[in-house]
């Protein structure tokens, strides 16, 4: 079981981290590499106020490593933080959308070890050691789009586009598990992604095109 390794009584604001780098400096560098400013105010209850360090005592360690899109990212995560919050507001990966924050829309769908899940309804601490893939991790090294992304463009999949990252992630997971799905397979696989524009048929056309072209 995970336990806290620093003592907040000694230095609550700035406990040392290995290599002489202070915890604060390390977090700053993590945020800088994600090209995002500190978004404490956006996080509200997830901010690291003085009471927050106390909540970690005896529970999970806050400074953790996550495997995101093939890279190891060090990040400070409070115990009650969801993965969607960490991705968007700590790591700058805003391709993952927050629609309902209740697991009722699918906009926040990401992959954990190739399995699609709702990142708004998953605590970040529960994906330590797992491979997290977001929509930012799909494009090839040369910048070309993933076949599903390209097919969604070609089939005019998105209308407003807000649900699109979630639709893409679910479709990618489907095609990894089943490269030749029927249209009905695709319908069932995408049943957990709402599209308020009602572009479902366009998305299904995109999935079928991506399956043909891959």
């Amino acid at each position, binding site marked *: 079981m995970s336990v806290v390794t620093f003592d907040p009584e000694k230095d609550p604001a700035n406990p040392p981290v290995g290599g002489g780098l202070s915890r604060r400096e390390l977090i700053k560098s993590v945020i800088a590499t994600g090209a995002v400013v500190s978004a404490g105010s956006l996080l509200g209850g997830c901010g690291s106020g003085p009471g927050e360090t106390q909540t970690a005592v005896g529970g999970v360690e806050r400074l953790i490593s996550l495997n995101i899109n093939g890279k190891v990212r060090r990040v400070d995560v409070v115990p009650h933080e969801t993965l969607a919050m960490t991705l968007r507001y700590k790591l700058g990966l805003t391709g993952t959308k927050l629609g309902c924050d209740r697991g009722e829309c699918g906009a926040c769908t990401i992959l954990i070890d190739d399995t699609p899940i709702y990142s708004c309804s998953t605590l970040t*601490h529960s994906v330590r050691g797992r491979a997290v893939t977001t929509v930012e991790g799909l494009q090839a090294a040369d910048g070309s789009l993933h076949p599903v992304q390209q097919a969604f463009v070609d089939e005019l999949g998105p209308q407003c586009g807000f649900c699109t990252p979630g639709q893409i992630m679910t479709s990618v997971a489907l095609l990894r598990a089943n490269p030749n799905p029927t249209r009905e397979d695709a319908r069932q696989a995408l049943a957990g992604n709402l599209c308020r524009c009602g572009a479902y048929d366009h998305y299904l056309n995109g999935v079928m095109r991506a399956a043909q072209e891959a």
Partner: protein
Amino acid sequence: MATKDMMRPFQLFQPESLDGALALADKHGGDGWIMSGGNDSLSWFKDRVKSPVAVIDLGGVTDLVGIRETANGIEIGAQTTLTEIAESDVIQSKFSVLSDAARHVATPQIRNVSSIGGNLCQDTRCWYYRDGLDCYRAGGTKCYADTPEGMNREHCLFNADRCVAVTPSDTAPAIVALDGQMTIAGPNGTRTVPAEEFFIGPAIDIERMTVLEPGEILTTITIPNTFSGATFYFEKVADRNSWDFALVNVAAAIIEDGSTISDARVVCGGVECVPKRLTVVEEVVKGSSRDEETAALAGQSAVRGATPLNYNHFKIPLMENLVKRAIRDA
């Protein structure tokens, strides 16, 4: 209304063994909260209706994951996901009513993280209760659903006792139909109770849906071979085919001897606080042939004694037809 999207802080514990989880649950008592897949738990926390001090996440307790075939049936670890159950070869071949039921829960993404234990132990969906009102189930002294203006089209038909909430689970009727046995671990050792007795109504305890005491954890669901390879039926009717909880669902297991039904278990969800085993229907169909007449009789006897609320009369013909179809089309 103020935004309620932020969870209040809590301590998070991620034990890697059942003993570790039990020790933490015992230590934290009423301040603790045992979390499985987290879909039900996190929405309670985000709504700030429940605010535990310590959350004990069972996600790392790997010895509670898996489906094992034994000489007497199968054993399902409570942390096995609904996707694993829906796709399990052994469950599909021996107890397909359970894999069918698991496939009808919510959405693929939710089934990928939700466990069978969490699906069985989840709390009711009565929106007055979920909104944090001081109803009977929340320890108060009134029911907001069973009033002249109360929105109660999703509420119960049977055995209301102050509270009119219903069981939301799709897998629970299947587990009761299969005569599942629930193994519960607690600070004083383990105990096993039949699924039928695992779920409790408001007359027994109005603040709980199951017999689980604080500090106890559902560890294993054992399905005996009694109905292995029987004729099964599962159907769920909800307002939407994705996400939504059942208005009424039915799970049936039927054993035929030649052309007559020799044994049957029929269970409905969404009509009572517990999965409603329809023993009258079972008695009606035993010894009869599986035909239109028997099915009609089964449907009629299923809804006998139903006491609808203001807005849920529609559940009576819905339940009647589902039971009829379960017997006729299984």
